[in-house]
């Protein structure tokens, strides 16, 4: 029997399947590597210091993306200021406070729903609600508020995982020493879950940096000039982030070289963030052992 345990001969069907699996896998990863190499080979050239540190100057005809880098930084900062407390707070509520199973299920279902809504819908909603109804106009602030809702599921879920990983005995120990619930959360839970919370922040930054469709509708604008006013004046005016700027250069104006330069920068950021998540994960695991 060819099918016996002792006979090592493989069934023809198995060999075929191994072949198919190997082929598809090789194709997918070859493609991924090709994309990365292609973007860097086309884009790294354009990433000069002047390109990164100046505003576009139509008079002498030089290009620069510093304004959109600043816009991106502002939006990241604002979004995190809103989203991290709300998201972590939500996770603490689900994990430590909520007693009704029904409520927990509703919160978890809506969180799940939120993560499935495409960014263009967030864009339409953000435009109607933040820009028009709350009269915040098409601005970086509207963009950050819209993004806050978009990254909420990531933060809640990641923070929840981290809180779940804190041993129950820590909570009991704190309670046994007479700590109130808030004291226990502040001094025991959050510090122990900090690795997970940082992971949540890094993942959110990735989402914010890559976002374009929603921001086109709620933060829009261009990035021609360096900020002239204070931070608070700046966030009330419109402006495009790096990803939106890539779209404007490559699609609206057909300047693919600039597009690839920005793409290379975005890719460097994404790779950096992914490495950071991995490193943090490793540290958390080591801590647990």
């Amino acid at each position, binding site marked *: 029997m060819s099918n016996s345990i002792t006979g090592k001969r493989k069934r023809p069907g198995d060999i075929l399947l191994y072949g198919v699996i190997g082929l598809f896998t090789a194709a997918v990863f070859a493609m991924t590597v090709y994309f990365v190499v292609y973007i860097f080979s086309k884009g790294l050239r354009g990433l000069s210091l002047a390109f990164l540190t100046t505003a576009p100057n139509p008079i002498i005809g030089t290009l620069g993306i510093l304004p959109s880098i600043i816009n991106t930084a502002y939006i990241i900062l604002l979004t995190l200021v809103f989203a991290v407390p709300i998201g972590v707070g939500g996770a603490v*509520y*689900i994990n430590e406070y909520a007693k009704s199973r029904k409520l927990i299920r509703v*919160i978890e279902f809506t969180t799940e729903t939120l993560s499935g*809504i495409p960014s*263009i819908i967030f864009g339409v909603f953000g435009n109607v609600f933040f820009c028009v109804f709350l009269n915040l106009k098409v601005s970086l602030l509207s963009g950050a508020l819209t993004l806050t809702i978009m990254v909420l599921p990531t933060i809640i879920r990641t923070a929840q995982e981290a809180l779940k990983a804190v041993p129950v005995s820590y909570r009991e120990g704190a309670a046994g020493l*007479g700590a109130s619930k808030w004291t226990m959360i502040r001094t025991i839970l959050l510090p122990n879950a900090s690795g997970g919370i940082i992971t949540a922040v890094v993942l959110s930054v990735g989402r914010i940096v*890559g976002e374009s469709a929603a921001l*086109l509708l709620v933060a829009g604008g261009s990035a021609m000039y360096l900020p002239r006013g204070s931070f608070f004046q700046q966030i009330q005016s419109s402006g495009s982030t790096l990803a939106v700027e890539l779209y404007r250069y*490559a699609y609206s104006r057909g300047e693919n070289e600039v597009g690839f330069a920005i793409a290379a920068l975005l890719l460097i950021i994404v790779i950096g963030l992914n490495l950071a998540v991995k490193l943090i994960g490793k540290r958390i695991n080591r801590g647990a052992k």
Partner: protein
Amino acid sequence: MQNSIARAGKSKAPLEKIMNVLFLVCGLAAVVSVVLISLYMVLSGAPAIAKIGPLQFLAGQIWNPEAKEFGILPLILSSVTATGLAVVVAVPAALCVAVFLTQIAGKRLASALLFLVELLAGIPSVVYGLLGAILIVPLVFQAQTALGLPMSGSLLSASIVLVIMILPTIISVSVSSIHAVPRQYNDVSLALGSSKMQSIVRAVIPAAKSGIVSGIVLGVGRAIGETMAVMMVAGNAPIMPEFLKPARLLTVGISMEWAYSSGIHREALFGIGLVLFAFIMVINVLLSTILKKGGARK
């Protein structure tokens, strides 16, 4: 001493109550957001659909804002076709990769490759749009010239870009659901004399089925909601879907004309938003039913 434990507890009580309420508010943020989004999508989209007429809007074949004609059937069908083709191609490929990563590759190789999968998932959609416009659209040009069609962005290009974009979603969900299959399934199957591949196909994958299906549904959601990458390669003419001709998808229908729309035109875009939102909600409910069923069986 008045500093008794009971008094300390009392003095802290107001703070405790405040924090309790604050955490509740944070916990409800997601619920409030979903309610608000649903409310605003309906409030802004429904009047437009009523004004244009539901039938003319959903089944109309002509989209021409200047002539006040707002039929989105071509957009709906283009979205469905592009997503359908993308899923049909991406699912087998993703499943093969997931099997390779979990069953065949060693630990080191698997974790290195998983990093690449995560990278693929993290690349912004505008970057995919740019890659698609430079690498994929010209390939389709060749097919178009061969058939005597004008060279343009096309539904096929959009589908190909979508395949690449939903691969990481389906791969990573499948990988974690295959990981969740108890080892005994595989061991028992091997002990009964099946080969490794037979065990994978007959024992491991069926056990991971509900997870894999939820990965596919997530992929469908991601594909139907994708905007920027598709806009950059699809050519964006609102005509009935044909693979080698330009196509405008629902998402692109909103983003393309947003900046210069007003009045009934802008309202019609809200209407498209509502239709897209309805698609997504159906997918979400489908997903949670699948997950519930999978959970119930265990």
